[in-house]
């Protein structure tokens, strides 16, 4: 009964967030345009070798899709007191957090799906292991969305959330192996790269579209670890606000 109540609450918050925020026409247009512009920019810059770059483009779409809107949604709701409406309800903080993370993951999944479609149809990306691709992408969306929620629940204002998100997003883009292979980075940067979840997203997507370079199971396990750590830290941040 209790579990069913919690699941019903998660579902209700997810639906509400999708309806009230994520699936608004400007966000849907951004969700479609962002991958197109990103893919076009790389196509014009370097028409060759795009098949190698394609998994990286999907990873970037996942990163921006999950973290951008989620940070706005959570900090906006905090600002106007609407988040407190959720705290008033007979739901655990864990359920509220999971609902928020799922909202970001679903929106990120939508943008990643558009990017995947573009990469397959225009750039000739071939998904050799669809299950690994979908599973790896889903896990990455959860990990990245959990990171987004950690930032959003730890700050007060929308602009703070955006600024902090960028502190994580831009180093991740440059160090995750999309542009420069992680193996060829200097040792200190390589260490940093392996501390970033996007590195494992790129490895997983590469493994499912090209030939696996590392064991995908390890990447999956590390992404689960990242998700768990981010969720626990966010839960603690929510508890501190209660105290």
């Amino acid at each position, binding site marked *: 009964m209790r579990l069913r109540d919690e699941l019903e*609450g998660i579902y*209700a*918050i997810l639906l509400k967030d999708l309806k009230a925020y994520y699936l608004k026409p400007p966000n849907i247009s951004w969700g479609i345009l962002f991958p197109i512009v990103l893919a076009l920019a790389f196509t014009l810059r370097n028409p060759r070798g795009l098949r190698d770059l394609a998994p990286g483009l999907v990873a970037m779409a996942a990163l921006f899709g999950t973290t951008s809107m989620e940070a706005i949604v959570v900090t906006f709701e905090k600002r106007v007191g*609407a988040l*407190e*409406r959720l*705290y*008033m309800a*007979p739901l655990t903080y864990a359920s509220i957090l999971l609902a928020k993370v799922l909202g970001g993951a679903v929106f990120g999944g939508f943008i990643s799906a558009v990017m995947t479609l573009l990469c397959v149809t225009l750039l000739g990306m071939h998904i050799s292991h669809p299950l690994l691709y979908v599973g790896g992408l889903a896990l990455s969306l959860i990990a990245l969305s959990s990171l987004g929620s950690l930032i959003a629940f730890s700050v007060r204002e929308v602009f703070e959330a955006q600024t902090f998100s960028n502190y994580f997003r831009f180093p991740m883009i440059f160090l995750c192996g999309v542009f420069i292979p992680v193996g060829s980075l200097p040792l200190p940067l390589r260490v940093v790269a392996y501390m970033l979840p996007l590195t494992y997203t790129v490895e997983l997507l590469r493994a499912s579209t090209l030939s696996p370079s590392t064991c995908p199971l390890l990447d999956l396990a590390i992404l689960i670890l990242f998700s768990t750590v981010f969720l626990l830290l966010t839960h603690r941040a929510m508890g501190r606000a209660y*105290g």
Partner: protein
Amino acid sequence: MDSIIVEGLTKYYGDLCAVDHVSFTVDAGEVFGYLGPNGAGKTTTIRMLTGLTRPSEGRAWVAGYDVLNETLEVKRRIGVVPEASNLYDELTVWENLEFISRLYHVPRAERRRRIRELLKLFDLWDRRNTRFRRLSRGLKRRAVLAAALINDPEILFLDEPTTGLDVVSARSLRGLVNRLRGMGKTIFLTTHYIEEADQLCDRVAIIVRGRIRVIDTPENLKLRAGVKSILEVELSDSPPEELLEKLGGLGELEVEGRQLRVHTDDPQMLLRILTEEVGRSGLALLSLRGRSPTLEDAFIKLTGLSPEVMRREKGV
């Protein structure tokens, strides 16, 4: 039977003691007012009782459950109207209530019926498809009150429900609170409007700087404060010294030109003196008004605070 039991509830924010060891009980079906100026600790108390803030010290039971260790059970049995109307701007009134009903696990079969009933009770049926952000302040408060009742709670917490409303909307909302009292709900109401507490509450706690000064019925508070009946007299000319001396013997006397205000517990004697002395000095009695002491008079006596200060603090 007690719906709310509070024992030594305390909240510190750093060095600041926002609520200082408050203790009280609220009976089932009672409307309990928590009256005090801005920053007195009213909202912090509500937040602790509704599981939104962890108390630093003390304990509280709401609907028989410990607010600290059985928070979810407490939340299932209460409805909260926060000071801010915090429903979702982008959703319609119906969608908002539907969402809240899911959060409170209202069975699917009952959901539509309950929403329909509440929208009709609060005269929001015609606005059910209007987005929340397009409602007036008064209608927003009604929608928030409807949302707080979606789970048919035993206890309703109302935090400054009429703040910022125009006179008509505030009166209408007070009427609704009275109807809820008729439905047997226990209501915990914080307000800085003294007349609101006087009109609505069975008992009132006056809280100043985190401490409860006094708890009693509005009538008993007036008696305890020793507030007397007030008679306002208007004469045709300035009153002679002899009249003032005699009236001064009855109680506190205020004189403003031709107008007199006497605080007395012997209005009959006042009338006798007036009829005798006014006729003797050749003056005419233009008007005579009596008014019963209000909770505001008692509040001033008991706290030494001016109600004007409370109104100014809230910016209303």
